[in-house]
Every structure is written in C-alpha cells, then in structure tokens.
C-alpha cells in the first residue's frame, strides 16, 4: 500500500471511530447534556486554538486580538440566521452553512483590513496593535444597532450540535495540516525562523503574513458562528481581551507550532475548569499556578513544535516498515521546478552597477560604485571593515534602496524592486552572519528556496490536488540532488542548527543555489572557518561555477581565498572603489596597500600618538 494513502486511511478511520463512539455515547445518554455541551465547546475552542496557532505558532507573530474575529463571525452568523428564519421563513438548519461561511468571510475581511497596516510592525508592537484592534471591534459591536448594542443579540436558533461541530473541527484541522505541509505553509514557517532570510530566498514576507493572518481570522469567524448557534445569545463583552488571552494560553501550553498540541491543550483547558467545579473557589487559583509551573518547567509547551502521528504509532505497532522495505515504488508523474533561462548577451555583463551610491542621513555609505560581473566569472569585493561592502550587497538585493545610480541585471534595471522579486529575477545571496531556518531540516531549508520556481496555489496544497503532488515530488528530487552535489545528503533530515559550522555555511550557499540564480552573492563565506574548512569552501565555489553556470561576486577577508579563486577583484574603501584588476595587480597596487595598512605619510603616527595620550 502506498504510504500516503495508508496514512489517510488510518487517520480517517480514527476520526470516524472517535466520532461514532462519542455520538453513540451522547445519543444513548451515557454522556449527559451538560457534558455533551462541554464537548461541543471543546470543538469550538480547538478551532480557535488551531487557527491562532497559525499566526502565533507558525508565523511567529504574537496576536492578542483573536477573540475579536470570533465575535465578528458570531454576530454575522447569528444575525444572518435570525434574519433568514424570521423574515424569509427559511429552515434554521438550512441557514447554518450560509451563516457560518458568511461569518468566516467577514472575519477574514476584517483580518485582512487589520493585517495590512498592522503587520508592518514587529514583535511586541504588533501584539499591542492586535490587542487594540480586538478591543475596537468589541466597542464598535457594542455600539451598533444591528448587533443589539451592549446587550447583544439573543434567541439565535440553537441549531448547532455535536456532529456539526465535530466535522467542522476535523475539517479545520485537516486544512491546517495540509496547508502546513505545502509550499505556502513552508513559506510561513520560514518567516518565523528568519524573516530576512525568507525574503532573500524569494518569499514575500508581507504577503504571507497577511495570508496567515486572514486565514486564521477566517477560521476564528467560523468558530464564532458555531458558538452563536450553540449558546443562542451573544454579547460583545464575551469576546474581550481576556478571551483572546485564554486562546493564547492554549496555544502556548500546547506548543507553538504544534497542531496536535493545540488540540490537546484546548481539550484539557476547556475540561479542567469543569472538572474542578467542586473546588469552585480554588479552580482559578489552581489554573493560574498550573500555568506558571508549566511555563517554568516546560517553556516550549506540551508538544513543542512536534506533532503526534497516528500513522507512526500504527506502523510501530504493526511493524509495517519491515515489510515496506521490500516493496518497490512505481514511478509517479513529476513536475520539476522552473529552471529559468537567462538571456545572456555575448560580451555584456550579467550584472552591472552604474554610479551606485547610498546616503544614510548625513553619511555617504557608498558612492559612484561601478561594478561589472560577467557570466561564469568569480569576482572578489574586498576592502577594510566598514568600507561598505555589505551595503553594496544590500543594494544589489533590494534590502536598501540606492539613493543614486542604477543596477542592471541582464540589461534590465532592478532598482526599486522588492528583495523577493530580485530573487525571482536571478540574484541570490548568503549572509555574513549565517541565517538559516534553524529548526527546519536541511532538506526543508532547500525546499523553501524553490518557492519562486513553483506554481501550485494554496487551494492545490490544501486539497492535495495532483499539481501539488507533482511539484512536491519534483522539488524533493531536486533538493536531494543538490545536497548530493555538496556531499550533504546524509544530513538531509537533521535540523539545520545541528550541523557543524562549515556545513551550515555550505547549506546557506546550497539554499541560495536552489533559487536557480544567474548571480550568486556570497557575503564572507569563509568567516569563522578553520583553514581546512576554507580550503574545502574554495573547492565548493569552483564546483558551483562549473556546474551551475552562475556569476559569483564574493566579499571576503581571507586573502588566500580571494587571491586563489577570483579572476578579478574590486577594492572598496570609504564607500568608493579605489582599485580593480587581477589578483596580481591588486596585490601590487599602492592604493590598496595604503587602504589596508594605513598611510605611510604620518597618518598612522598621528593615530599612535592619540592612543599614547589615551593610555597616559
């Protein structure tokens, strides 16, 4: 049996089993009405928690206003059902899908409207602004006629039941899982791991942040709709800041980034206060102590970022893998990621800067920089610390917007383009201080980089359409090939931050190459390496040029490396190019020697005198 199909069958049967057991127990009265309603509340809270986990766990942005979206969904759904049943004479049960969907959509619209401005902020400021928006939603609902003002609306047909809640919840969980395992989910995760690296690997950070935020709001809206039809009367005060915090606590206790963790935490934390009912006076006290102890002794939450896999347990119990080893896989259709063809003109540079410069306030960090990089060339960019080398890289990749001059890639200006667009155009880079997606595996790090070269939509990924499967198989193959070229295949499934230092640098280069660039920018690739690692790196860079047909521009302080592999070298000092030429020319250039060793006409002396004074 195919492994994917097997896992679908195992999970589907388990879900149905749980459903039939619970619904039989409820039907026969073994679970009384009171506990049945708690089960339904658990279902609703699972949806809320799992969706909040998308923003807080997967995207890594603290959101303190999730209950606001729930309230938008609850009121929208409640009002629609009431209207349709009262004035149009519709059957209440028939209204439910429409109201739920409408609630979800309106919540998503709110999420989008709030997300667009709010996500420009970072960290705690973002958290506070989501808190602010959540509270504003509450106050507005409390002051609107249609939502019944402060008293809210009541007599909403109570048509929600266990089956509806269970299957909606199951659907939301499945969607979260499949989304998380698609290229879109990987993009969201990579933003949590390292937003700068994600952008430089071709991911539009803003777009995916808004996507995750909107998506989470949609599900919160649906949960709100279920809630409205469960309780029958809603008031905006229910969905206040404390409610948002309640869900945040569930996410954190379950483990940020773990869907199964969220499910368990939502279940336990909904049930716990009910079980502690006989200690009514002490239950909130116990709850708060538990919260503190949990954080002190298990700060990553119950599950961390891990997931509980039923398939894995099943395989262990039945010893499936022993048998699987002998089965042969039949080849399946594969779509390879795009490998763009770059129109390189004979004799023209692939990358060229013309009078490039940038000014930060009063500081001219770079000025009149003219670089040319030809196809298949390895060019060095050297200069003393603070000369502006990384600034030039940041302009080339769209991290900084140059204030003067132009950058031409294959004859087209790329000034003003976003970083991720420049990646798609064919410029990839590495960083001075390594920026990997640390808790993702080596293989996943590379898969993220194929993002711009893939096409399937979020819907394709969520519903696992053939397009998704073909493209995913394609990048799986490509990523492994790439790792094989760099002798890193055995590390494919290790977390990236578990690699030794030299390997981490190599992985970063590997990831940059996965975006299929024409130009590769390496920012101090040998920094922190020992001589053996540096020698290996020199071989790697040579190998890249021979195999991948790229032009390489590298910043480096290790002169042995620069002189050993670069065909041409530019020397930057105080933001200006002071020399260029072959390694031999550069080595003998008096300007360069002066830049590195100081002036021979007393400049050094002056400095020494100053220091002597300071010491005295």
């Amino acid at each position, binding site marked *: 049996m195919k492994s994917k199909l097997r896992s679908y069958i195992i999970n589907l049967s388990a879900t149905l089993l749980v459903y039939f057991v619970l619904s039989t127990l409820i039907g026969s009265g073994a679970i009384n009405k009171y506990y049945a309603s708690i089960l339904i509340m658990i279902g609703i809270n699972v949806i809320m928690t799992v969706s909040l986990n998308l923003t*807080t766990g997967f995207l890594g942005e*603290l959101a303190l206003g999730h209950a606001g979206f729930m309230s938008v969904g609850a009121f929208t759904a409640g009002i629609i059902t009431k209207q349709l049943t009262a004035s149009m004479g519709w059957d209440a049960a028939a209204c439910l899908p429409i109201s739920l969907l409408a609630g979800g959509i309106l919540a998503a619209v709110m999420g989008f409207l709030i997300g667009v*401005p*709010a996500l*420009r*902020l*970072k960290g*705690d*400021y973002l*958290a*506070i*602004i989501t*808190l*602010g*928006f959540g*509270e*504003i939603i509450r*106050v*507005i609902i*409390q*002051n609107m006629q249609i939502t019944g003002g*402060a008293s809210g609306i009541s007599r909403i047909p109570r048509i929600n039941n266990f089956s509806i809640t269970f299957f909606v919840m199951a659907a939301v969980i499945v969607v979260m899982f499949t989304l998380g395992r698609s290229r879109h989910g990987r993009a969201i995760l990579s933003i949590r791991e390292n937003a*700068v690296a994600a952008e430089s690997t071709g991911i539009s950070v803003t777009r995916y942040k808004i996507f995750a935020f909107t998506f989470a709001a949609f599900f919160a809206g649906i949960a709100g709709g279920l809630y409205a039809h469960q309780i029958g009367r809603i008031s905006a005060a229910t969905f206040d*800041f404390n409610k948002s*915090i309640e869900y*945040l*606590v569930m996410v*954190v*206790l379950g483990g*940020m980034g773990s869907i199964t963790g969220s499910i368990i935490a939502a279940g336990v934390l909904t049930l716990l206060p009910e079980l502690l009912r006989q200690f009514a*006076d*002490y239950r*909130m*006290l116990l*709850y*708060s*102590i538990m*919260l*503190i102890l949990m*954080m*002190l002794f298990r*700060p990553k939450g119950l599950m961390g970022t891990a997931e509980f896999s039923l398939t894995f347990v099943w395989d262990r119990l039945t010893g499936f893998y022993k048998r699987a080893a002998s089965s042969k896989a039949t080849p399946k259709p594969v779509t390879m990621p795009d490998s763009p063809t770059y129109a390189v003109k004979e004799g023209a540079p692939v990358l060229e800067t013309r009078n490039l410069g940038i000014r930060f306030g009063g500081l001219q960090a770079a000025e009149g920089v003219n670089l040319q990089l030809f196809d298949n060339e390895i060019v060095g960019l050297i200069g003393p610390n603070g000369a502006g080398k*990384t600034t030039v890289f*940041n302009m080339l990749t769209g*991290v900084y917007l140059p204030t003067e001059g132009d950058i031409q890639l294959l004859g087209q200006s790329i000034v003003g383009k976003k970083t991720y667009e420049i990646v798609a155009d064919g410029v990839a880079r590495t*960083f001075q201080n390594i920026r990997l997606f640390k808790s993702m595996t080596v293989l996943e790090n590379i898969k993220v980089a194929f993002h711009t070269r893939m096409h399937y939509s979020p819907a394709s990924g969520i519903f696992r359409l053939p397009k998704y499967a073909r493209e995913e198989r394609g990048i799986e193959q490509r990523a492994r090939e790439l790792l094989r070229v760099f002798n890193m295949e055995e590390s494919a499934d290790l977390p990236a931050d578990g690699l030794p230092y030299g390997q981490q640098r190599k992985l970063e280069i590997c990831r940059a190459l996965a975006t299929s660039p024409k130009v590769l920018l390496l920012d101090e690739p040998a920094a922190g390496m020992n001589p053996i690692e540096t020698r290996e790196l020199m071989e790697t860079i040579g190998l890249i040029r021979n195999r991948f047909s790229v032009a390489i521009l590298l910043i480096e302080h290790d002169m042995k490396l620069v002189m050993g592999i670069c065909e041409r070298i530019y020397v930057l000092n105080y933001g200006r190019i002071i020399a260029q030429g072959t390694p031999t020319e550069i080595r003998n250039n008096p300007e360069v020697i002066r830049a590195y060793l100081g002036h021979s006409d007393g400049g050094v002396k002056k400095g020494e005198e100053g220091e002597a004074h300071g010491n005295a």
Partner: protein
Amino acid sequence: MVLFFNQLINGLGTGAIYALIALGYTMVYGIVKLINFAHGDIMMVGSYTAVLLMVNAGVSFPVALMGSMLICVVFGVAIERVAYKPLREAPRICSLITAIGVSYLLQNSAQLLFSANPRPFPPVFSVPPITLGGISISFVTLVTVVVSVLLMIGLNLFVMTSRTGKAMRAVSEDIGAAKLMGINVNMTISVTFAIGCALAGIGAFLYCIAYPSVAPTMGAMPGLKAFIAAVLGGIGILPGAMLGGFIMGVAESLTKGFVSTQLSDAVVYGILIIVLLFKPSGMLGRVQREKV
C-alpha cells in the same frame, strides 16, 4: 468651555495615574523586555494593603503609604525572582504567559482572601476643590498631577545620572556585556522591579483616592491602559510613559464628556493604532532597523 476645561483637568488627573503605573511598566520592559501583565495587580495588592492598614489597623495615611509601597516592592521582587528570572533565556512569549499566570494568581488569591465584593477606600484628604472662574480643580487631582510629574523627573534623573541608573541602562542594552563589565545583573533587575512596584504602590493610593473602591480585579483595566500609554509614548522611555499617560487620560475624558462614554475605549485604542502606524516605536521612540 467650562465643561471642556473641567474634562481636561479630570483627564490630566486620570492620565497622571496611568503615567505613574506606566513608568513601572516601561522600566521593567526596558530592562528585561517583558510585558509584565501582573503590574496592574501589584497596584491592587498595594490598594488592599492600604485599606487593611488604614481601616483595620488604623494607622495614619503616610504610614499606610509607606507600608503599601513596601508590600508592593516585596511582591514585585519576589515575583521576578520566582517566576521571571528562570525564564530569562527562554523565548519571550513564555515569560509573557507566566506574567499572565501571575496576574491571574494575584487576582484569584485576593478574591479568596477578601471576596469579590469591593471595599470602600477611606477618605484621605478633605480639602475643598479650588475654583477658578467656574473651573474647579479638586485637590486630589492637583496632588496627583504634581506627584507624578515630580516622580517622573526624579526617576529620569536617577536613571540618567546615578551609578545604579547607569547599570540599568547598560543591562537593558546588553545583559551579557553588562555582566562582563562587572555589573550585578540580578541585583540591577531586582532594583528595577522594586522601583517600578514602589511607583505602583503610590499609584494605588492616588487611584484609590480618585476612585475610592478596592476590588480584586481593579488592577486589570488601569494596568492595561497604563501599558498602552507606555507603548504610545515609546516603551522603555520614561518621559514617553508620562506623555502617553497624559494623552490617554485626556483623550478618554474628552471623549466621555463630548462624544460618548462607551466610545472612550475605542478612541484610546484608535489613537494608539494611528500613532503606531506612523511612528512604529511610539511617540518618543527611535526606530531600530535590523542589520542585514
């Protein structure tokens, strides 16, 4: 016009209390980057201490003030040592959740000890309001504003000039480097919490004089508002907290007087959002770009 000035003065009074609590928030955030959600509840602890001392033990007002500041300091420092210190290296969201836990713990303990029913706060000053051409300024408001401005100036001087203040600024920039320079980091953080909580103790008194009723959840709302005030002014910056507090108080009071009572919260949050969108690190904050 008279109504306007009366509302303005009321707003300044409330704003001064927000500002005092915000100072504590901002100091703690500045040094350990923790949104100390329990800060408002420390104020509640101070208020109960004051009631117990003045009503049950019958001590005089200045002694009660000292006593409640002391209890706030003890609570604040103990909470930091027990609940926050072990999580200094953990992701920041963990200490945030712990702070929420501490806040619940304080509220629920108070509820067990004193029941949920509010207790009246005894009158402290019986000075008639000063009237100036129809505008009346209550003595309490005057004291509140003066006290909080003086405290802010004093605190700012302390942080900018004293040895301990310098240590605080160093720890807030870089804990590791501060340690290497011989600064006792744990001590410095404790002192910061102590000062913040002492201010909360004073804030508790001023708050209770203005709104003479003490309840277990009384700290939550002013705590949240004070925090927003701190963010509005630029979190980690002392004059910012004061500015934010006054803006919030005045905006709230003017909305209540001229627009609608219910919308006052929306206006406050609206101001916060607009300010953050145009100045992402608050009114007096400086933007820090991530170095690539």
